[in-house]
């Protein structure tokens, strides 16, 4: 089974800004995709399909999809290139397949059963697997996270859902002290094959207590693996890898990405597909500047890269996929090629993921840097509610463009224009 290489057509759109287009792009698993010979899909004319250094050569010929045309199930009996799948469906299908494959896997959380999941990620699982394997809990994060850990000590493979990762703060003692540290404290006797998943980071207008990004907090704890998928393929592959992994994994999703569709190769739809943990993906190759991002910001970075392309700056966008272990090799190799770095994240700036990337690059590739590292993060304030303030509190595409130009020593204003 070969790993997925770079996919081609991620034109990740910041969902908040593109809501008007959602009605067109409402693909689901069962709807056949009608494409022309260039692989351009119906309804996607507004996005510019960027290919990997090759122009419009058609989606699937570059990717591995056609080369590994699988024995398909009845769902996939159309002849055109790749399918589209929402992140929600990707997560749901990954959970479904893993629960079918291993009876030790069970899902536990608030509203995962009869409500079909607070964000419908676990839709249909209760009917398929029953209430013993899809467990609705009372509102007791500390309690059920600990129960998950205790059951993992004995070899079950729980998938604990937090309605948002903000609520994981009530259970953080168990994530860190009884899950992350246990294999070490017991000197390898007891490992904890648990997955903590849920939406992370800001959504739209949900206020300060529902908008924090926890990538940096969990990313600093030895004993945890922290994954941050972006596209549907990421979501499927990384969740499957996380469930099969014998260690505790914190799986940070994004609420606004749930409804977004991404093309998935046929290989990704196979039930034994999974992605390696700790490897970043170069979403778009470039030679002038490296932009690292994770989760929703990958979409923004890709859009920023398109804008920069028009101005003559070729940006390389790295989708981190994994905050812990951080793929320092890929990041450093990219910086050594381009000599400039912009890190993008939605979390708070101090001690953030970007800070760690910057330190890693300074330690390993200092001589290769032609400009100071630009760090873009959320504003150093609790998230405001008002829509215009919230927009200012999180990175926007213009911020990334400006930072990239600054790193390339083009004259740009420091602050955003009044909006």
């Amino acid at each position, binding site marked *: 089974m070969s790993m997925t290489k770079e996919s081609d057509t991620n034109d990740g759109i910041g969902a908040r800004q593109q809501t008007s287009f959602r009605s067109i792009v409402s693909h689901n698993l069962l709807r056949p995709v009608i494409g022309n010979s260039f692989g351009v899909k119906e309804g996607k004319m507004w996005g510019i399909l960027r290919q990997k250094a090759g122009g419009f050569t058609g989606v699937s010929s570059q990717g591995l999809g056609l080369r590994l045309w699988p024995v398909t199930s009845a769902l996939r009996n159309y002849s055109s290139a790749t399918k589209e799948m929402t992140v929600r469906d990707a997560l749901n299908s990954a959970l479904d397949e893993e629960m079918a494959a291993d009876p030790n896997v069970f899902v536990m959380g608030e509203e995962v059963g009869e409500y079909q999941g607070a964000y419908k990620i676990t839709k249909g699982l209760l009917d398929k697997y029953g209430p013993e394997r899809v467990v609705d809990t*009372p509102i007791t994060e500390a309690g059920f996270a*600990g129960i998950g850990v205790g*059951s993992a*000590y004995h070899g079950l493979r729980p998938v604990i859902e937090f309605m948002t990762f903000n609520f994981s703060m009530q259970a953080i003692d168990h994530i860190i002290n009884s899950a992350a540290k*246990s294999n070490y404290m017991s000197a390898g006797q007891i490992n904890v094959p648990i997955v903590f998943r849920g939406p992370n980071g800001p959504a739209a207008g949900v206020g300060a207590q529902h908008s924090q990004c926890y990538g940096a907090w969990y990313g600093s704890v030895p*004993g945890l693996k922290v994954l941050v998928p972006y596209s549907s393929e990421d979501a499927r592959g990384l969740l499957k890898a996380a469930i099969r992994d014998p260690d505790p994994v914190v799986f940070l999703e994004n609420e606004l990405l749930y409804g977004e569709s991404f093309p998935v190769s046929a290989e990704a739809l196979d039930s034994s597909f999974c992605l390696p943990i700790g490897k970043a993906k170069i979403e778009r190759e470039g030679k002038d500047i490296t932009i690292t991002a994770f989760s929703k910001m990958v979409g923004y970075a890709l859009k920023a890269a398109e804008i920069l392309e028009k101005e003559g700056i070729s940006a390389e966008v790295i989708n981190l996929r994994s905050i812990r272990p951080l793929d320092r090799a890929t990041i450093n190799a990219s910086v050594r090629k381009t000599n400039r770095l912009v890190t993008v994240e939605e979390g708070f700036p101090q001690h953030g993921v970007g800070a760690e990337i910057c330190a890693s690059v300074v330690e390993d590739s200092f001589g290769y840097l032609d400009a100071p590292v630009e760090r873009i993060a959320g504003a150093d304030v609790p998230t405001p509610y008002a829509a215009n303030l919230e927009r200012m509190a999180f990175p926007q595409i213009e911020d990334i463009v400006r930072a990239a130009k600054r790193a390339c020593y083009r004259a740009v204003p420091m602050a955003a224009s009044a909006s």
Partner: protein
Amino acid sequence: MSISSGPKIIRPITLQPCNRSSDNPILSDHRITTFIGSTRTLRLTQSISSSQRRSASTIVAVSDVAKRKSNKNLLLTKEEGLEVYEDMILGRAFEDMCAQMYYRGKMFGFVHLYNGQEAVSSGFIKLLKKEDSVVSTYRDHVHALSKGVPARAVMSELFGKTTGCCRGQGGSMHMFSAEHNVLGGFAFIGEGIPVATGAAFTSKYKREVLKEADCDHVTLAFFGDGTANNGQFFECLNMAALWKLPIVFVVENNLWAIGMSHLRATSDPAIWKKGPAFGMPGVHVDGMDVLKVREVAKDAIGRARRGEGPTLVECETYRFRGHSLADPDELRDPNEKARYAARDPITALKKYLIESKLASEAELKAIEKKVDEVVEDAVEFADESPVPSRSQLLENVFADPRGFGIGPDGRYRCEDPKFTQGTAQV
């Protein structure tokens, strides 16, 4: 082995409000707990009102259940008696040796000793099978010993040597043993309770989902009086009763949480009452008497094994030493300490065994001597063991050999076609 003359009736739990007078919370005559026999007897011997709790009258350390049994229907056989006695002596000798070693500098950090509470550990854990699990707090040396972890392994762990049960990486507060199903050793109070509930959940899951029909493993969660005020405790009482998990919540109420008296910290000091509030029996037992504890434990563990759900057992006990070896222990009244010292569980059991002619002085002395040798041997072993090698620092962070999803053959595990377990049908 049944001790009561009548049939043992375990009635289903009814959620009735406790109708008790507010100034006598310890006195019980509530109907909700369903353990007949010794429990009711022993509660009536403890007529202490809450206001007089601190200066309770001396309770003679004789098991009054034994006194009742003049018809030779003894509480335990000779083997059981000697086993329990040896376990308690081992706990006491081990902890005393820990104190000595600490003051000699061989042990360091936080060390919390269990002197005085041995009856709870021996009374409960000696009734368990090897597959049953025990989850404890930082005061876990004796729980590990009772469950079967060798004294050598525990002592080496305390010395920080690589031959310890956790290779020196856990320490005093984090005793783990996969072989003996000791699931820790947690420093945060209340942290072990959800983990224990999870272990009990696994038992039920294995029975119902994985169809291992005879899986009746029980989990014991040990914790203290201070923990009974913690949110996680209540969350787990709720879920354990809701899902009828095979767990026994054992409260070792030694009246003090470091320097905070239980009465100063708790609105209603009767912890056993919190059980019925969540729909499970709540039992209060004299934790200085191993025979009473054993009776209650048999009932509670039996209930859990039969699938009838959890039980909350409050053991009134006392720690003879301070909270930890660094605790000057100035706040406790010396009279209180003297009173409880007179109720030393080991002395009580010794007296019982001799008076009921289950064992002779010589046999008990032989056991004490044997235990002394075991403990000394453990110290020697630990002393001579090597400290962990430098390479051990970075080991065991992940179960994954290289932490990145990389398998033993050096390739990413997800590349391996056999990585899928079973067949997925979507």
